[in-house]
């Protein structure tokens, strides 16, 4: 089984690094990071600032969308190409198949983001007013966590969609809902409820949207917890505590494993009914 897992992962890495798309994304990401660095150099700040906030917001727009597209297209592409059907006759376990694809794609995306951060970091080290190391590390962690969580969602989309076009529709819908529409939808819905319900419901809702809890966590770690509002007061207190960090990492792992299990279940259910 381990053999199958590594074989699938290695193929995903090869396909990823041979894809011209990966290099276009790398160029875009480096450009984006360098722009942020230039903006940052116009004023000096430590911890959470308007600049880091802007960098986080722009990362939130870019990374989940790219990750969702890459992940979902990778799975639906296998369906459209007939590769998924052929591999089914090879009797691969879901852990080998989806797990191998997930880790392979994760490594490709992490390599791109790491190169982007490294290039900017090296240039930043030559300038007087670059990002501080701790801020930079947290922003990198923010990108890594977003990729890990949204790639797992992409696996679910890939398991549901039959074609790349269908996957694109789902990707745009999910990205819009989680990234753009989340705040207005929450404000509109929770505003209709009794005041005492708002906080617990907001907490539960946040657990479904990785973009939201990762954002809140990183803002708290950057020391800007007050800007997310009083509803998150307990989260901020908890997240800055050592047990909060462990719980947060566990939450991310559980979310990723949950999505992969769901994708596996959907895949098994869908593939044998033709």
């Amino acid at each position: 089984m381990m053999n199958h897992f590594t074989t699938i992962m290695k193929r995903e890495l090869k396909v990823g690094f041979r894809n011209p798309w990966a290099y276009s994304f790398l160029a875009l990401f480096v450009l984006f990071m360098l722009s942020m660095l230039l903006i940052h150099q116009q004023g000096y700040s430590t911890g959470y600032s308007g600049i880091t906030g802007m960098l986080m917001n722009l990362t939130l727009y870019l990374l989940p969308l790219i990750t969702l597209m890459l992940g979902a297209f990778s799975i639906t592409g296998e369906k459209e190409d007939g590769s998924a059907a052929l591999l089914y006759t090879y009797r691969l376990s879901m852990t080998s198949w989806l797990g191998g694809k997930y880790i392979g794609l994760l490594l490709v995306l992490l390599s791109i983001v790491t190169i982007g951060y490294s290039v900017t970091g090296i240039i930043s080290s030559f300038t007087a007013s670059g990002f501080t190391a701790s801020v930079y590390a947290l922003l990198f962690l923010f990108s890594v966590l977003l990729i890990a969580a949204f790639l797992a969602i992409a696996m679910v989309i890939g398991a549901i969609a039959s074609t790349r076009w269908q996957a694109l529709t789902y990707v745009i819908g999910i990205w819009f809902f989680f990234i753009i529409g989340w705040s207005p939808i929450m404000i509109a819905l929770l505003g209709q409820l009794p005041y005492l319900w708002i906080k617990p419901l907001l907490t539960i809702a946040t657990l479904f949207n990785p973009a939201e809890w990762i954002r809140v966590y990183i803002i708290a770690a950057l020391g800007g917890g007050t800007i997310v509002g009083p509803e998150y007061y307990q989260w901020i207190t908890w997240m800055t505590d050592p047990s909060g960090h462990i719980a947060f990492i566990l939450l991310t792992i559980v979310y990723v494993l949950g999505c992969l299990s769901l994708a596996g279940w959907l895949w098994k259910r869908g593939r044998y009914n033709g």
Partner: protein
Amino acid sequence: MDNTKEQLESVAVENTFLQLDHISKSVASKQIVEPFTLSFTAGQIVALCGGNGAGKSSIIRMIAGLSKPTTGTISLNDLTIEQHPEQYFSSLGYMPDDYQFTGSFTAFESLKFWGELKQQSIERIRELLELVGLHETGNKKVHQFSKGMRQRLLLAQALLSKPALLLLDEPTNGLDPYWMKRFVSIIDEAARQGTIVLFSTHQLQVAEAVADHIVFLDQGQIKLSSSYKDIEQQYGEEGLQTAYEQLFWGEEGPMKRVRS
């Protein structure tokens, strides 16, 4: 090219038998394949013949485990897909009809990927590339390959684990006359080693050249299932063509109508 026998030396189980028992398939209340029962034994080469939409690929996909039969059971040496999936699939080699290769991979890389999944050695991969005549172009990207070359690579993939049951969906599409002939000898040798070969085709000359059992299908219904020898005896020298014309267009047949 004469080392086909060595390259195909099979681990196929002696006295292998494939049992298709009351198999049928319907999708959204439409009958795709009418119920049928057939069985085949080691060394048999079976051609599923018929026009477009006859149900050839549906039957192959069911036997390959890609589509669940609506009724009936499929077993290989009494092992069903549901109860013994590991053993069933490990005895299977499948060549799909609608496969798009990863264009950025070379032929060698593609076959190596499948070979690793089936725990096959690099030597075996080289052997098979040679068997299908791709050893010299093994380092070329598959997107540079012609349809026929891709088909040959897919055939090599199906032969990787020397399967007891070889399922080939339209394997000769895109093959030139030389490789059509080579295909016949490769399949013939695999059968001689004890493999059951079941392939679909709409090219009667291929069925005639290699198959020892013919199944004619039309709109999901088996019109005729008989040994090639019996068909030849019953319908004469151009047995398969005559049988096809009579089964599908009646006594007169479209060709005869055109001639007259």
